[in-house]
């Protein structure tokens, strides 16, 4: 404690000016600061991309609405999708991993701190570049603005002939930069997890969070390069006439789809594994039991990682593959359901027989469990290729993946915020506001996305800026849009809570949740060096061992 007292005593004299503080952010290589910067930037892009979604829902609230022109609408869904995946999902994952992995494995920082900072700035400027396209996308030809080719940018819509101006080039470059950031983060995570674990922390004693982040990092390393390669090929097409994807010159449109989804499907799991990671930490603590079937959870996650590289063409059941191709990808896709089921059952097993405490992190995790279950089941429907021939590219698909990414990922991100904010800031988030957030968001989410499945059954394609009355789609679209208002109000509650509690929140103390992993063994917020003395561990729950010397975990593992 001596060191911290010295630090506290010195603090008031320094009065760092805002310039100094900003400068510190720019030059920092500290994993905790970078982690928080990632999360803050991601939340910023989240509000921007979320507002774009709200505008689209407003346009669709009634048939034949002319609130927004088709051109603007098409840019909105392209930017919304691209931003949510590359500027929100990926960085928030990087932020959580950055902040928590070193603390959880008892290390003082990431293995490669400078590379870490490099990764952040690549992502951040990539994000700004993407939005800069609104101003500069027109380019010399004066045509276009922000990209409007959809987030998976199917060729040949991206060829010069169909996408004049620079908008598609901004899209390519922004994603290339983000991709570099992600690859760098993945390398860093792997190096950190393999080389920096404290004494006694064998691989099989790592918290599930760390395991899942390790798997995510491995998947990023395999999935990102095909995307980056495809982006570079597309750039060559657009500037040097390479003709990989330019169908008018004999290129292949389907080739792009293969490249994109070889990245795109694993990407889905790259985004959902962090959700698993968070849930696997929070559910045990608030059920007061260790995670059920730890080795099976690890094995299931590794299996998901592997299988997810063999399912990509389930996004392409309608491109006219042979019946053998379609069957193959239907089979592999359904197989992913098995390890995913194992994970859900193990969380259930963790809660079963426990003493469940309904704190905010746990509420969001329970929401996650239900919604992810539904997402998984609608996923099985889409995996049945013939069913997919009807549902593909309909609003049903949109509802399905929003159940995965909002009902699954975003709920656990909220859970993570309520759970680790006290560690990072030193103060608790307000519970009352948090409950408002939870209930408003949950009601809003279900209004918007439960109803969105149905127009898909009734033949409504996705990405249309307007529709005629009389096909039975009106009510559902109306309810969908109403739900957005509740979700927006809920996010506002969260933002207010984050700002207010940073100053006025109740003091958290080191270990407010009576938890078991190493990050709770240090102060809140942790000092720059994380731990005064590097910890030694003998089991998966080092803090349990300390709190229960009469019944430590290492006796059973």
């Amino acid at each position, binding site marked *: 404690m001596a060191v911290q007292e010295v630090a506290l005593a010195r603090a008031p004299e320094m009065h760092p000016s805002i310039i100094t503080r900003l400068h510190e952010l720019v030059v920092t290589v500290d994993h905790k600061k970078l982690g928080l910067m990632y999360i803050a930037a991601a939340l910023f892009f989240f509000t921007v991309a979320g507002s774009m979604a709200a505008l689209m829902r407003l346009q669709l609230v009634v048939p034949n609405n002319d609130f927004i022109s088709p*051109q603007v609408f*098409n840019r909105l869904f392209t930017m919304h999708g691209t931003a949510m995946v590359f500027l929100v999902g990926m960085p928030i994952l990087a932020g959580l991993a950055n902040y928590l992995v070193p603390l959880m494995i008892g290390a003082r920082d990431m293995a490669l701190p400078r590379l870490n900072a490099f990764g952040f700035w690549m992502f951040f400027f990539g994000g700004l570049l993407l939005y800069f396209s609104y101003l500069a996308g027109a380019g010399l030809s004066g045509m276009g603005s922000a990209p409007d080719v*959809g987030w998976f940018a*199917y060729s*040949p*819509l991206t060829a010069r002939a169909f996408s004049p101006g620079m908008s598609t080039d901004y899209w390519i470059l922004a994603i290339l930069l983000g991709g570099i950031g992600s690859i760098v983060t993945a390398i860093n995570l792997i190096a950190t997890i393999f080389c920096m674990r404290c004494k006694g922390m064998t691989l099989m004693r790592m918290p599930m969070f760390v395991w899942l982040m390790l798997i995510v990092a491995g998947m990023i390393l395999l999935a990102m390069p095909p995307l980056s390669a495809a982006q570079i090929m597309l750039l060559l097409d657009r500037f040097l006439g390479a003709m990989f994807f330019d*169908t*008018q010159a004999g290129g292949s449109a*389907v080739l792009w789809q293969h490249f994109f989804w070889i990245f795109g499907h694993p990407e889905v799991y790259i985004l959902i594994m962090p959700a698993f990671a968070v849930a696997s930490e929070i559910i045990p603590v608030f059920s*007061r*039991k260790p995670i059920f*079937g*730890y080795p099976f959870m690890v094995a299931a996650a590794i299996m998901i990682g592997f299988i997810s590289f063999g399912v990509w063409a389930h996004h392409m059941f*309608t*491109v*006219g593959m*042979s*019946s053998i191709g*379609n*069957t193959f990808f*239907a*089979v592999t896709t*359904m197989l992913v*359901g*098995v390890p995913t*089921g*194992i994970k*859900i059952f*193990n969380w*259930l*097993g963790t809660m*079963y*027989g426990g*003493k*469940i*405490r309904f704190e905010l992190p746990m509420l969001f995790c329970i929401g996650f469990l239900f919604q992810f*279950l539904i997402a998984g089941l609608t996923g*099985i429907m889409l*995996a*049945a*290729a*013939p*069913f997919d*021939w*009807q549902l*593909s*590219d*309909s609003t049903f698909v949109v509802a399905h993946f929003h159940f995965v990414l909002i009902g699954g990922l975003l709920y656990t991100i909220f859970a993570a915020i309520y759970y680790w904010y006290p560690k990072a800031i030193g103060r608790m988030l307000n519970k009352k506001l948090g409950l408002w957030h939870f209930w408003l968001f949950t009601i809003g989410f279900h209004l918007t996305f439960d109803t969105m499945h149905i127009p898909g*059954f*009734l*033949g409504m*394609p996705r*990405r*249309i*800026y307007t529709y005629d009355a009389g*096909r*039975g789609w009106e009510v559902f679209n109306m309810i969908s849009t109403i739900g957005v208002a509740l979700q927006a109000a809920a996010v506002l509650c969260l933002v207010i809570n984050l700002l207010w509690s940073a100053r006025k929140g109740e003091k958290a103390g080191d270990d407010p949740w009576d938890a078991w992993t190493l990050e709770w063994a240090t102060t809140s917020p942790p000092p720059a060096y994380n731990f005064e003395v590097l910890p030694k561990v003998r089991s998966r729950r080092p803090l349990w061992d300390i709190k*229960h010397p009469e019944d430590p*975990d290492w006796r*059973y593992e």
Partner: protein
Amino acid sequence: MADNLNIHQIAVVPEQVTNIFKPLATPSESIYQISLLTLAICGVIFLIVGGLLVYTIIRFRTRSNDEQSEPPQIYGSNQIELAWTVFPILIVFVLILVTARTISDVQNATHPPDSLKVTVVGHQWWWEIRYPDLGIVTANELHVPVSDPAKPRRTVLKLQSADVAHSYWVPQLSGKVDLIPNRDNYMWFDPKQTGLYLGNCAEYCGTQHAHMLIRVIVHQQEEFDRWVLEQQKPAVDNREVTAGRKVFLSTSCVNCHTISGTIAGGKFGPDLTHLMSRDTLGAGAIKNTPNLLRAWVHDPQKLKEGCLMPDMQLSQQELDLIVAYLSTLK
């Protein structure tokens, strides 16, 4: 409007014409079967797992009296893990068998030699429709014969694209199949009822993706044969509108549109030879009424913003003449 085309004798648009659970042809029917099965299995799983979750949450919530003590610490169980690995595998196995069968039924079906062959070419944002064996070229509205059990008649579509990727989706007839440049895809159906079937382009294809609508009109065989005869005739040559015809042929309309028997041979836009036989204009964007036709020729950008037919800047007089001429193209 005209009386020769029978479109108006077709039954009123049925309720929910794009509902995938109201199939009216063999492929959509097989898809419907497997959809119901999948939905049922998923529904049962949801009830069981969801029920267990609810039970666990209620049964094992913390009660106020026993806050302090920790529950028994249980680390796992191999038997239980085995159970919940094997059951899902069995379910997946069943689903895979059914899926494989349906895929093969739909994709590997052999077509009788008398099937009607149609080529559909996707364009930004309209459909070119060709009947190679009948020598007919039209746009947006696909006419096919009904397939009644006594006299089954299948329609096989060859799907191609002139520019970007599109997708042909008429939910009541079949699942969707994409139209991809440099590639031939196929789709087939045997409509069980006469009437109007609607659909949409289902692959995002640019600005007016939303107004790339599909109309399939299913006729009795005789009615269909009559339609074919009408379409095979060259364009009507009506003396009263010679002036309009002249104006049309002297503007750049001819670079984009074809009217058989004239010098107009453009392929960039829809064939106008029998324009008035169509119910809608602009791939379903608007109804084909005299007023709307006039408005379209005057400035299509006002009716279908961003579409690839430019505002032709016609004078009022030219407009009157051209529209009068187009109105005779039955």
